[in-house]
């Protein structure tokens, strides 16, 4: 077994406190406990006995007796007799991750997560802020329950989904594969039968979900639709008040024009691009493509036409 030096260091640090509490354990049992060979364990022990605190004199080194009768005795653990504790940052990071995980649908062993989180919280109890660590994945309770049931029972899901690309509610049958969380947003990855391809759905955009037939038992499957269109890229001129668009929508700055920024932005669809530019109320101007520029102008004018002429 080849392990990284990081894994070995973690094992070395865990080894001493464990040996202190299991005085007289055999090399074979200890190796089995740490899931290493006896040779690897002996290499670890040889390394430990030349480790110590600064000064590194004979009385400042870890002293372990392991050459008599195949049993191990720690004679001097130096400062390593207590197990390492998580730092405040490590505890908080783990807590956040576990609480996020516990909120996702399709988790089969939620109890284990809750128990683990409780242990960490208890451990970090002197830092009172542990109880302020709360995470909420935005998803309707009934959707969560349905996704849960479908994932665990390997069943199809009938989704009503508010698609971002067209600002419409679409209905589709999907075969759920897994749930993931990225940057605090939950997603369902599934095979979409209507598209004939893998799709990712934001959990907070799923309006309703109904559990259907077991996966694989559907006789009729619509032929795969045409693949999604090639991604369109647009060039926009952004005023300072619209600069946030670069970060939120993964744009690339190409140039600066006075206080404004010229950016290239991937578009989910032309329609999505139109809505983005409209929402920015003049703080963004489309340079390219021409179709987007024209579509924005048309949409803005059509929208204005819905209001009575303003009295000057």
């Amino acid at each position, binding site marked *: 077994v080849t392990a990284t030096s990081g894994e070995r260091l973690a094992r070395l640090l865990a080894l001493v406190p464990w040996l202190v509490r299991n005085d007289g354990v055999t090399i074979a049992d200890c190796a089995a406990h740490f899931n290493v060979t006896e040779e690897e364990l002996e290499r670890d022990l040889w390394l430990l006995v030349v480790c110590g605190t600064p000064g590194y004199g004979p009385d400042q080194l870890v002293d372990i007796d392991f050459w008599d009768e195949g049993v191990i005795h720690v004679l001097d653990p130096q400062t390593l007799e207590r197990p390492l504790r998580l730092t405040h940052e490590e505890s908080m990071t783990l807590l956040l991750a576990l609480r996020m995980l516990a909120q996702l649908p399709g988790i089969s062993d939620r109890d284990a997560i809750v128990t683990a989180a409780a242990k960490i919280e208890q451990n970090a109890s002197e830092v009172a802020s542990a109880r302020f660590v709360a995470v909420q994945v935005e998803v309707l309770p009934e959707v969560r329950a349905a996704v849960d049931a479908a994932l665990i029972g390997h069943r199809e899901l009938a989704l009503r989904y508010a698609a971002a690309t067209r600002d419409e509610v679409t209905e589709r049958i999907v075969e759920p594969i897994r749930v993931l969380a990225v940057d605090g947003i939950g997603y369902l990855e599934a095979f979409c039968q209507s598209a004939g391809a893998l799709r990712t759905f934001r959990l907070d955009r799923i309006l309703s979900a109904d559990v259907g037939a077991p996966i694989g038992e559907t006789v009729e499957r619509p032929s795969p639709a045409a693949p999604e269109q090639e991604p369109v890229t647009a060039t926009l001129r952004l005023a300072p008040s619209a600069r946030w668009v670069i970060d939120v929508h993964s744009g690339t700055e190409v140039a600066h024009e006075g206080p404004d920024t010229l950016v290239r932005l991937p578009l989910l669809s032309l329609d999505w691009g139109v809505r983005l530019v409209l929402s920015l109320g003049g703080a963004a101007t489309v340079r390219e493509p021409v179709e987007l520029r024209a579509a924005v102008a048309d949409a803005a004018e059509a929208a*204005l036409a819905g*209001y009575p002429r303003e009295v000057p």
Partner: protein
Amino acid sequence: VTVTGRAREQAPPQDFDIASFGTAESDERVRARVRVSPGRAASLRRRAVSDDAWTADEIVVEGASVEALASQICATGPDVVVLEPDDVIHAVRAGLAAVAAAHRSEESQ
């Protein structure tokens, strides 16, 4: 914000809970009544505070400010027309007019 003392001199109020503070809805929400084309503007309908938002022709939407609400409404283009209140109507019209001007004029090419 005014400095009144050193850090940690002030105890947080007894009933303060940072978890609910961060997610608390501001009291000052802005509402607007809008007309929506059938089957359109899903993004606005899912935020509606009125009943039957998925089928209704008129819905009530809410935002953190006039500007924020106007921005969301502008995004829906001709699918949505604001019926009231006046400040939201004005903000939406101003936003749309600015977009139209920026995309029809030659100088911004």
